[in-house]
């Protein structure tokens, strides 16, 4: 589904990704872990199409298409979803408007008709219940005045409404207390399916207690140094990241 080959990216003259290789197949859940500044969030941003990053080498293909050639909205409409590390507050644009516009954009791409207001409400009510969100939130501005936990829950709500093919979660666990983390994990787990892939970027192993990955990758200094299963995450939790770097440089 997602095939990344030798991906190099930089901001200005600062090189951040230095040859990332990653294969993601339908149904898989991948965790990308790494110390601060290793390039985790850059990888998620480049895949979602955020401006300001220059890809200098390498490729990323999604369902056979050149992902990097697509505008951010085209990626979204084809089923790529990025849950932001820092969801943006947009006063004056309400959540219901955004959810409906986003959903209809995806449906159009899939050859489905727009949902009317009634069908839309019926659809999101269930999803909101799952994310433990109050209905009053629909008429509020996007993320406006939300707590950190509410913002992350809102990201997962959007994701569950849009039903992406490839979900990228950028530090979705950061800033969450344990209750909020459980709600978010329940939302993500409800989306696990044989057709869908999930790539989570995270600094801590904690999230992986709730969302069990099939693969764990260690990203350091712009490259994936090691790949394993969830036991690798536990080892990282115990031993930190340094030993991975040392073993990699020794090899």
């Amino acid at each position, binding site marked *: 589904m997602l095939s990344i080959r030798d991906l190099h990216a930089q901001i200005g003259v600062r090189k951040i990704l230095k040859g990332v290789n990653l294969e993601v197949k339908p149904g898989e859940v991948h965790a990308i872990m790494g110390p601060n500044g290793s390039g985790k969030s850059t990888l998620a941003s480049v895949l979602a199409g955020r401006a300001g990053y220059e890809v200098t080498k390498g490729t990323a293909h999604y369902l056979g298409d050149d992902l990097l050639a697509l505008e951010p909205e085209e990626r979204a409409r084809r089923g790529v979803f990025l849950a932001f590390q820092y969801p*943006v507050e947009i006063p004056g644009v309400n959540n219901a408007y955004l959810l409906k*516009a986003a959903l209809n954009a995806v449906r159009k791409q899939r050859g489905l008709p727009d949902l009317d207001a009634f069908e839309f409400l019926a659809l999101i009510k269930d999803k909101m219940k799952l994310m433990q969100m109050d209905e009053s939130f629909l008429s509020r501005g996007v993320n406006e005045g939300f707590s950190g936990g509410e913002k992350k829950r809102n990201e997962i709500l959007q994701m569950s409404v849009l039903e992406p093919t490839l979900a990228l979660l950028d530090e979705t666990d950061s800033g969450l207390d344990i209750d909020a983390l459980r709600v978010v994990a329940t939302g993500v787990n409800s989306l696990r399916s044989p057709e869908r892939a999930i790539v989570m970027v995270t600094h801590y192993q904690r999230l992986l207690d709730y969302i069990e990955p099939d693969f764990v990758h260690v990203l350091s200094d712009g490259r994936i140094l090691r790949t394993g299963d969830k036991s690798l995450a536990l080892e990282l939790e115990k031993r930190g990241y340094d030993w991975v770097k040392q073993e990699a440089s020794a090899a």
Partner: protein
Amino acid sequence: MSAIALSPATAHYRAAFERLRPQLGGTAARRVAAMERFAELGFPGAREEAWKYTSLRRLESRRFVPAAPTTKPVDVPAAFVAQRLVLANGSPVGVVPASLGGFTLGTLTTAPEDQLLRSLVGGGTERFAALNAALTLGPLLLSTATGQQSDDVLQLTLVTTGTGPTLASPRIAVRMAPASRARLLLDHVDDGAHEHFPYAVLDIELAAGAHLTLYRLQRQGERAFHIERMEVRVGDHATFVMRDSQLGAALARLDTNVSLDGRAAATEITGVFLADGSRHLDSHIHVDHRAIETTSLQDYRGIAANKGRGVFNGKAIVHEGAQKSNARQVNRNLLLTPGAEIDTKPDLEIYADDVQCSHGTTTGQLDPNALFYLRSRGLSEPEARSALTRAFAGAVMARVDEPTLARHVHDELDRRLVRLLEVAA
């Protein structure tokens, strides 16, 4: 007549006035004096501070014909509210009812002339206020009775129309009696057939405890030159509220002068303007705090695109003795496309020591993070830009508590923004 040398434009209007004089109501001497004052002041020169960002050279080069009384029918857009009076070139169309929409109505034949044609002195628009007093056809007096409370809205549709470029001089005086409450909607339109030059004067007084909400919509055609002067005096514990939407005309200038004369007098002047195409929109606000515990809020949101230009000049003066006053000024502007321009100048002068004053002005582009966020959810770039631009105006639009008007302005903003953003994308 005085011996000063007149510019060709000034001479043109004086000659037109002489021809029109027999048809004008009121005392001839008052009309003549007003015309002489205009002739004396003439059109503003390039170096006049009040006209620094707005050149009237194009306006001055035209020879508009002052409107004469007429009984011809006139087309106007549908009313927003149930109670409306149409003024064509400043003259009421049809019989003026004795009362409408919470106001008692008076004309030159039924109301005192010194209330209707009072001279408004000072500022960059005194010349045009004088021209208006000389030429106005059917000045209207709107008044309330003491303690009269009305939730109605009276809409005045001011339409400029003519078989050639027409000068129209609508003039409205509003006298709010003590403890009365009313709402007025001022709708500026034209026939779009020619370059017209409507010059409007509003002369408003609020007695103690009165409350007036004035909704204003300027949606004239693409060729109109519009100048307007609003003079407001606010008494003890009285409140003047203006909700302004500027969407039309080629060039428009609005001077809003509010004098907070009485203790705890208050004003809230908020608005949006959309300077797209090659539109030039200039708003000058001048608030005088002359008594203790007076409060003022100025909050304008401006959007400029293409070759459009917006000018905002907001001034608040807290005079000596106006202790415990509160003056706030906000002006936020959005430049949607390269080539657009905004000139903003917030200005506070404070001569009292126990006051709270603040001003903030920003001019910028849409937040790239918000833009990316919306696009990453599948919205096209024009959709995302349009949503963010509407949200930008929405903060001020939310204060427009007349729903039919608010919907019209929202729809008009949407329609124009989507069009211009699709072209830009």
